[in-house]
């Protein structure tokens, strides 16, 4: 049954790295069904809500694969950017949309869950149904080369000695800040920074590291790539146990013997549907997402631009949200994050 539906050649399929092997197997089984019995859905345009502005990372990805997802479904998917409130507004709009399979959206745990934990909105994000994940963006720790920091352990020592005091990343109250607090409070890391300086995005944080306004900063691996290539920054470690495709030679902190902090150490770029969306619809959407990621266009774009595309099933999307909500409050003092203004 899969022959004419499973259009991807073996080589193309090889590009995709399955993070959820079980779900992939389940979907291969379903691959032939959409053209057969259930021809009803979708029979109209689908809206894809992006809770960020045009031109950002999430938007750039979406504008690549969403049209292919529409092609797979035989319909149009219209992108609607609903930026604001640290992505809580667009996510809220997704949450409140009718669960009819015609409104879906994408956000990136743990980023949006952290925003929700710091300033709780009136909806429960964990109730959203996962459709799948399409990429993973690990965080790395970067340093100004003039400090000649010899790896992550050396950095920890220098903070402990008081030689380094300032640690930085994106805005206070965001994922980077929570990561910094986690590493400070966690006995395994024991990263004793004195002051956290927040920047308006990874780009500005990396620039500030290069100009030595701050010695060390958290950055996304893609955000640090350009500066690292030019030796303007040293990349010390990757905060995801799965490592970074951009920096394959950089050790992860788990490689170095520190605790696994994957629930915070990487952005999992996911696609979600409102609570109550029928399982059948989710299956169709998941299948379309997987197929879209395997198209030649998306794959060659990914190869050319270095924007890694990695498919994951519905549960990898749901789990990323659930893990964030379970583990972050246990391990980080959220009150301290909220009170950051007074520090």
């Amino acid at each position: 049954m899969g022959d004419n539906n499973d259009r991807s050649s073996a080589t193309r399929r090889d590009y995709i790295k399955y993070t959820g092997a079980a779900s992939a197997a389940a979907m291969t089984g379903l691959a032939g069904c959409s053209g057969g019995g259930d021809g009803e859905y979708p029979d109209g345009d689908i809206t894809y809500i992006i809770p960020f502005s045009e031109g950002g990372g999430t938007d750039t990805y979406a504008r690549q694969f969403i049209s292919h997802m529409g092609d797979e479904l035989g319909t149009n998917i219209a992108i609607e950017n609903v930026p604001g409130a640290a992505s809580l507004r667009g996510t809220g709009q997704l949450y409140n949309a009718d669960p009819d399979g015609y409104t879906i959206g994408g956000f990136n745990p743990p980023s949006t869950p952290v925003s929700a934990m710091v300033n709780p909105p009136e909806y429960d994000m964990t109730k959203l149904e996962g459709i799948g994940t399409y990429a993973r963006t690990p965080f790395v720790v970067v340093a100004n080369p003039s400090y000649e920091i010899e790896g992550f352990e050396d950095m920890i020592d220098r903070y402990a000695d008081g030689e380094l005091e300032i640690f930085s990343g994106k805005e206070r109250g965001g994922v980077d800040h929570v990561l910094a607090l986690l590493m400070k409070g966690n006995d395994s890391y024991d990263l004793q920074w004195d002051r956290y300086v927040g920047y308006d995005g990874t780009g500005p944080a990396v620039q500030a590291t290069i100009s030595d306004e701050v010695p060390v900063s958290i950055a996304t691996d893609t955000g640090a790539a350009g500066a690292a290539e030019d030796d303007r920054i040293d990349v010390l470690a990757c905060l995801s146990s799965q490592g970074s495709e951009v920096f394959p030679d950089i050790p992860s902190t788990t490689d170095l013997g520190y605790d696994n902090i994957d629930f915070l150490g990487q952005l999992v770029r996911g696609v979600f549907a409102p609570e109550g969306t029928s399982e059948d619809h989710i299956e169709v959407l998941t299948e379309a997402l997987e197929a879209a990621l395997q198209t030649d266009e998306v794959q060659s774009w990914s190869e050319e631009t270095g924007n890694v595309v990695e498919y994951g099933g519905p549960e990898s999307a749901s789990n990323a949200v659930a893990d964030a909500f379970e583990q972050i409050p246990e391990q980080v003092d959220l009150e301290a994050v909220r009170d950051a203004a007074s520090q």
Partner: protein
Amino acid sequence: MAFAAFSEALSLVFSWPTPLWVVIGLTLGMIAGALPGIGSSLGMAIILPLTLPLGPINAIILLVSMYSGAMYGGSISAILVNVPGTGGAAATTFDGYPMAKQGRAIDALSMSATASAVGGFLSVITLLLISPILIEAVLLFGSPEYFLMAILGLSMITIVADGSMVKGLVAGAAGLLITTIGIAPNSPELRYTYGSLGLYDGIDFIAALIGMFAIAEMLKLAGQEGGIADGDIDLTGSTLSGVKETLSHPGTIIKSGYIGMFIGAIPGAGATVSNFLAYGESMRSSDDPGSFGNGNPLGVISSEASNNGTIGGSLIPTISFGIPGSGSTAVLLGGLLMHGLRPGPQLFETDLHITYAFLIALLIGNIFIILIGVLVVTRLAKLTLIDTHIIIPMILVLSMVGGYTLRSNWVDVITVLLLGFFGYIMVRKDYSIIAFVLGVVLGPIAEENLMRSLQISGGSYDIFVTKPLSLLITAAIILILVGPYVKPALEKRLA
């Protein structure tokens, strides 16, 4: 290497159909720029996914041409109906619109085209020349310098607020107060959001500008018979006289273009700030500051030269560090990434020909701005003769829709309306609109960078005077603030 890259870029830009993309980009940009709320960023975002089949060079050229076209396009509606199509054209309304009311819309339109083109040309040429040392130059600026630049901008209130100084300061403070709505910069603290997610990001300054200028003016026009041009005034002036007049003020164009470029290089500032500063500087250095606001051509020239000048500047952080200073450069950055061009040193080394290609395309684009602006757009001057009963509903609808399209947020529509009434009252009671807008635009930049500088220094204010550059800006601020008091005293003593 640079020369080889330059000649390769030249052949790229002049090979068909690239020039066509320049013209298409400019035209689309002008239309997007002239429509309030659409502006360059939304227009570019709509086009962005359609550029995929074009290949990187043509795609980026199309996008930067749109950006350039929109910067100029914003002046069209600013002059004709007092609606700044983009934030960068807000100061153009101050003298452009009075000129239109006096029947000199053709003059004003051809001036804005000429000034935009020359200002844009200057900044891009400069960018081409300094590109080898660009990254080092950007690294000189950090959080303390950004904060001081914002304060320098705010100190311009003392110059641009003609009339009562107290009223000027009150208006500026009101603008600053509005920027305290929303999530505080550098801390997750919520301020005046009353549980509404729509208020988390505060008041959008473009919505504020649309309200203050468009709605306020429509309220005023509602009490007036006939068209926008006063009474039975016929359209006077010719396209050529506008061009000549503009070119007879090279000092203003050069100064304003470079103010635009400099401000554009500061993330978060952009054309919305630079056009006011250039306008303020033009007013400060004028022998007859009183004529500003009543149709002084220098007002149009300085504002328009600066907003197109901003383009060259805003490309600096975008292409050197991947930091988008504005909505438009964010979309442009998205375009670069989408087409596999990673901002950073590479764009000045192996990909130098691509960087040169789109800078050359921008240069050529400026020639088209003059041609299209002078030959085609000036014909729109007839709009000022159309009865206000027809114009007002159109502008009201356009402003509301524009407000909503900014962020798909109803708060922005309410902002447009409320600040419209507020602006109307401010004009009636002689409070400075410029002072208010400077507060709205510069408040967030000042606050964010103040907080960050103090985090870095551990609370010490020394950070604002310890580096030569920050010391220099601090001195400039003091000079602007005390200059008007000290100058007459000095002159008296000398006399």
